[in-house]
């Protein structure tokens, strides 16, 4: 039982990363009919940007110029990195995807792959091949509850991930901008007829998705403090799986699927040798998709792509 609960805690943390990245995939896919295959590398870039900001703030602190408590450094790092990465996302949309809006979907998909490679190699050129260490921002505290060990950091990671997912869900349900996003997910071609500037909605979608990916990157950097330029690839692919598993355009679906992925991976590793982890975990997901091809929470949409 304690082993189970311990793994549950670990799975929640692990799933938080998938959930945050999957949301970005899912939103862009539903609103622009586009698989943004650069998204995993946006997560990586977000982690680096967050790391840079954190190092800067910590450096300012130790130089005595601007001494801030650790939690405030973390909050500032999260906010600033999310904003900067959101700008990166909007830039990618503007330069990479918007010119291909009406091009075959395969062209847009390989554009994503190319942008991903550019981000990876750009990072290598800029920072060199050595790995970067993410600074520790909060004093680790470990709580023991009936034999289960929980750190304050794990709690923080799960709460931030859930909070961001929920905030985004509310944004999409309740605001005018969110309404436009839902409308675009249903029938893209008619939205301009409502007087809605679809390019701005597209930019907003990328900004939100990239912001969440940056948050995932920073949370990941805090849990596993060594960053490398290729860390986004496997994470990106797996989150992409979570996005599809969650169902097209469903924020809650992507979030739940992200956590589900985390659970399956962690619990498979609990029972089987860890070398078999992904083999078995992704066979299970393949099976789920066979029975639910639209994912867990797929929403209906119009198949007519033009007016």
């Amino acid at each position: 039982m304690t082993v189970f609960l311990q793994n549950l805690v670990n799975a929640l943390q692990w799933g938080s990363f998938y959930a945050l990245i999957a949301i970005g995939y899912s939103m862009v896919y539903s609103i622009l009919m586009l698989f943004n295959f650069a998204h995993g590398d946006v997560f990586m870039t977000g982690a680096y940007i967050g790391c840079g900001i954190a190092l800067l703030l910590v450096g300012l602190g130790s130089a005595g110029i601007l001494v801030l408590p650790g939690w405030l450094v973390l909050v500032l790092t999260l906010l600033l990195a999310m904003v900067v990465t959101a700008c990166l996302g909007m830039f990618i949309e503007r330069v990479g995807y918007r010119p291909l809006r009406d091009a075959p979907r395969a062209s847009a998909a390989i554009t994503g792959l190319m942008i991903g490679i550019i981000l990876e190699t750009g990072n290598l050129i800029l920072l060199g091949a050595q790995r970067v260490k993410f600074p520790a921002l909060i004093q680790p505290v470990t709580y023991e509850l009936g034999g289960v060990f929980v750190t304050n950091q794990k709690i923080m990671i799960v709460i931030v991930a859930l909070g961001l997912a929920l905030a985004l869900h509310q944004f999409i349900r309740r605001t005018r901008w969110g309404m436009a996003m839902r409308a675009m997910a249903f029938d893209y071609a008619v939205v301009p007829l409502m007087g809605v500037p679809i390019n701005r909605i597209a930019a907003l979608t990328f900004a939100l998705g990239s912001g969440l990916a940056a948050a995932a990157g920073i949370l990941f950097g805090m849990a596993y403090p060594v960053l490398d330029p290729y860390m986004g690839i496997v994470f990106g692919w797996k989150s992409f799986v979570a996005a599809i598993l969650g169902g097209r355009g469903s924020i809650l679906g992507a979030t739940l699927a992200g956590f589900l992925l985390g659970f399956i991976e962690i619990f498979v590793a609990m029972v089987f040798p860890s070398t078999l982890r992904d083999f078995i975990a992704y066979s299970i997901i393949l099976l789920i998709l066979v029975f639910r091809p639209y994912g867990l929470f797929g929403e209906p949409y119009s198949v007519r792509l033009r007016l």
Partner: protein
Amino acid sequence: MSLLAVENLSVSYDRIRALHGISFTVEEGEIVCIIGANGAGKSTTLRAVSRLVKAEPGSRLRFADKDLLAYGPDRVVSELGISHVPEGRRLFENLTVLENLRLATFARRDTERIEADLRRMFRLFPRLEERRNQKAGTMSGGEQQMLAVARAYMSGRRLMLLDEPSMGLAPLLMMSLFDALRELNAEGTTILLVEQNARLALQFARRGYVMENGRLVLAGEARGLLENPEVRRAYLGG
């Protein structure tokens, strides 16, 4: 000065010409229809006015003395007040009735006027008020067409472009829809309508144009067109 003046409008899809330099006008306060067979280019004409398809060089489109081609599709709606009821209604079926109407006011800032317009639409189509919190996709075809018109009105009411509004409607519903449109027209909304149902369109409009293979081949008072032997033979069943 015409409200809408289209001159030499050409449009191509994938190098196949759909419109061959058509010219027509719509005066303020008018109801004008374009009739023609399926594939004649009627919908393309409306799409060009809404700036959803590219007009070829040499095309001139003016609206209220402004160059329409200088506006993008969303600004045609939000700044010029040209609304478009697309063929097949194309509602956002995943949104509620009220959300469909609110979305159409996305770019508007005249809050009080928005509420007044909303009340106006609910008075015109009481069914929509009853179903305001229902998903648009769950309504009947007639109610959906009402919502499509109301949504367009909310987005802009200076000129309303209507693409086959009668399609799929029972005669009685069709009549009440056209009555509602006539009311909106009497309140100042200019209407440009394209229809395959030529008789209905010509009875409703003041002036009409006949379109064949991407060209306007006839123009005139709707009454005159109804009695024109060629029109009768080709579009009114003799």
